């Protein structure tokens, strides 16, 4: 994308839309396209019930992708998502087994465990300068090991606390599932954090050039640490929601969330090497992936076909707008 091309494009689009990131616009365009394509297959795809149901399913991925985005903006990556999600869910369920106090503390305890794993990641990446791709892989293995030892290799018997179930499946506002509400709160907080706080701006600065950020007085190590703690905590929150939704935790419940969360962030126009991206894009990416998975399963395409189309669509969309500048 050369300078000429972008200035040409600016001439054609109305002033109101000039601030819109082309990646985010494309992602939302693809969502509409998907819905239209789905509605040709069955008119149910445009019904409010179906859309709300999709939003509810998307909220789990949305919460997890929010944490992933903070880390990707730094130019790092968090591969410990699968077992942080599972640990969060299992620990929250485990706390529930300890009477009333336990069940009150279940949700904070689950999130705390996730944040603790995130803290290990952050310390290693920020202070020991270990590449995030390796250390998060190792903490993932350790978290898995801890959970396997704790559960004895079986799905734990503890079930989710009523509060967790309420958080995932209840309705505080009629018609709006609580899961979506949680995602909304997390999302609003993320938007505020990314655009209105020094922490958020520092994330972008470090992602662009950590050396320059350090020279301009940002405590880059503290910011990196915080980003990983946030990612861990949000992954665990995602796990807590999932456990509430299924009313129990299970082994490998988090496996299905690592790659989609990275894909959602990147499809939303966030640069995978950091420093560029908006939360709106991540929202678009999350909805896009959830819709794609849902439409493929509604069309009763077999798992094999679903995976094929899923992979091809991600590559196709990235080719549309995720390309790097030519060397």
């Amino acid at each position, binding site marked *: 994308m050369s300078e000429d091309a972008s200035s040409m494009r600016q001439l054609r689009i109305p002033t109101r839309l000039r601030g819109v990131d082309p990646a985010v616009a494309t992602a939302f365009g693809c969502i509409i396209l998907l819905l239209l394509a789905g509605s040709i297959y069955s008119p149910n795809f445009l019904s409010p019930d179906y859309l709300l149901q999709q939003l509810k399913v998307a909220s789990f991925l949305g919460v997890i992708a929010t944490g992933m985005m903070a880390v990707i903006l730094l130019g790092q990556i968090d591969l410990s998502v699968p077992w942080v999600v599972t640990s969060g869910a299992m620990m929250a369920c485990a706390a529930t087994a300890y009477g009333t106090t336990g069940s009150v503390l279940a949700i904070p305890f689950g999130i705390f465990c996730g944040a603790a794993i995130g803290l290990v990641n952050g310390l290693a990446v920020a202070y020991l300068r*270990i590449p995030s791709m390796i250390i998060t892989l190792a903490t993932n293995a350790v978290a898995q090991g801890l959970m396997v030892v704790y559960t004895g290799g079986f799905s734990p018997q503890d079930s989710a606390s009523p509060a967790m179930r309420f958080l995932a499946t209840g309705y505080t506002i009629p018609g709006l599932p609580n899961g979506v509400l949680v995602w909304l709160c997390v999302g609003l907080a993320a938007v505020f954090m990314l655009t209105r706080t020094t922490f958020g701006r520092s994330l972008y600065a470090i992602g662009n050039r950590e050396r320059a950020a350090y020279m301009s007085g940002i405590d880059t190590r503290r910011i990196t640490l915080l980003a990983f703690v946030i990612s861990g905590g949000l992954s665990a929150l995602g796990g807590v929601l999932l456990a509430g939704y299924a009313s129990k935790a299970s082994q490998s419940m988090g496996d299905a969330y690592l790659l989609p969360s990275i894909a959602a962030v990147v499809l939303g126009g966030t640069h995978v090497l950091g420093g560029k991206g908006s939360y709106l894009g991540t929202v678009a990416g999350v909805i896009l992936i959830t819709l794609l998975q849902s439409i493929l399963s509604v069309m009763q395409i077999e798992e094999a076909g679903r995976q094929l189309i899923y992979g091809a669509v991600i590559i196709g969309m990235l080719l549309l707008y995720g390309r790097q500048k030519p060397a």
Partner: protein
Amino acid sequence: MNKHASGDRRFWYAQQKGTLFAALLFVAMFALYVSNHPAGFTPNVVQTASNKATLLAFVAMAQCLVVITAGIDLSAGMVLVLCNCLASWLVVGTPLQTGVGVVVVLLAGLGCGMLNGLIIIFGRLQPIVATIATSAIFYGLALLLRPTPGGSVNEDLADAFTSKLLGVVPASLVVLLAVIVVIWVPFSRSAIGRAAYAVGSAENAAYMSAMPVKRAKLTAYALGGLLSAIGGLYLTFFSYTGEAAFASGNAYTLYSIAAVVLGGVSLAGGRGSAVGAVFGALAFRTIGDLLFVFDFDPLWQPLFQGVVLMLAIGIGCIGLSRVRNRLEWFQ
């Protein structure tokens, strides 16, 4: 003259430090393993250990080739699974049919690697995301081939490749050595291979020096696919079936990264060798097996493996204490 030789030696040492560390780690771990094994150092123990470890060693070599160019291949495990499924259809029947089947499986792996390379180089996508997406495609293809586990393999061939040569040397180890000699040594010594290293350490500089940047990257990805395919063939030889197992594909990908790191290959690119990666894989597998000889509950295995992995990584950051200027943190 003497000075020259010692300089050469120091250069060689600096180049091979990671590989030597991995080899030492493996020898130490394996000695510990064998000395505590009830059967002791017998051909059978070595055969079982080497059969288990070669699978990971092939995928680790595949990962290593790509990592040297500063890329990453998150689809390596899925290529292995896909080739396992393909082999369970094709590597059967008469010797001729079996032979054709093996060639087709290897070509399929090469094709998968090439697809990765083409998308990354000409589509200009980030390797992490692009290979995540292609791994979904490969898994989909594997599921198409084997919706349920099944199939078979030419058992004579399978037994030949997993047995002991002359009753002593495990055949899998010989094959591993042959693959290193046939694929890695020519690659690392060719102009393309040197270009792959150059691309890994400074892509712009390599481009400016008129090195075949694109060809080097494409070769690395394609050979990576081929090596994963050999791994897939071997998986079929052990299991006699094909299975599109999502979890095991992902595990191979993640373990291959771990093995590469243990083997002293820098994830930033341009440093390390496939021999190191192979030793990393062997060491990683031996660590997993250590628990059994010490009579621990198998439940502790994942935790133990994770902790050892973490410690091995921790050793890598000792260099940090030598940094004189804080700005060197941000390379």
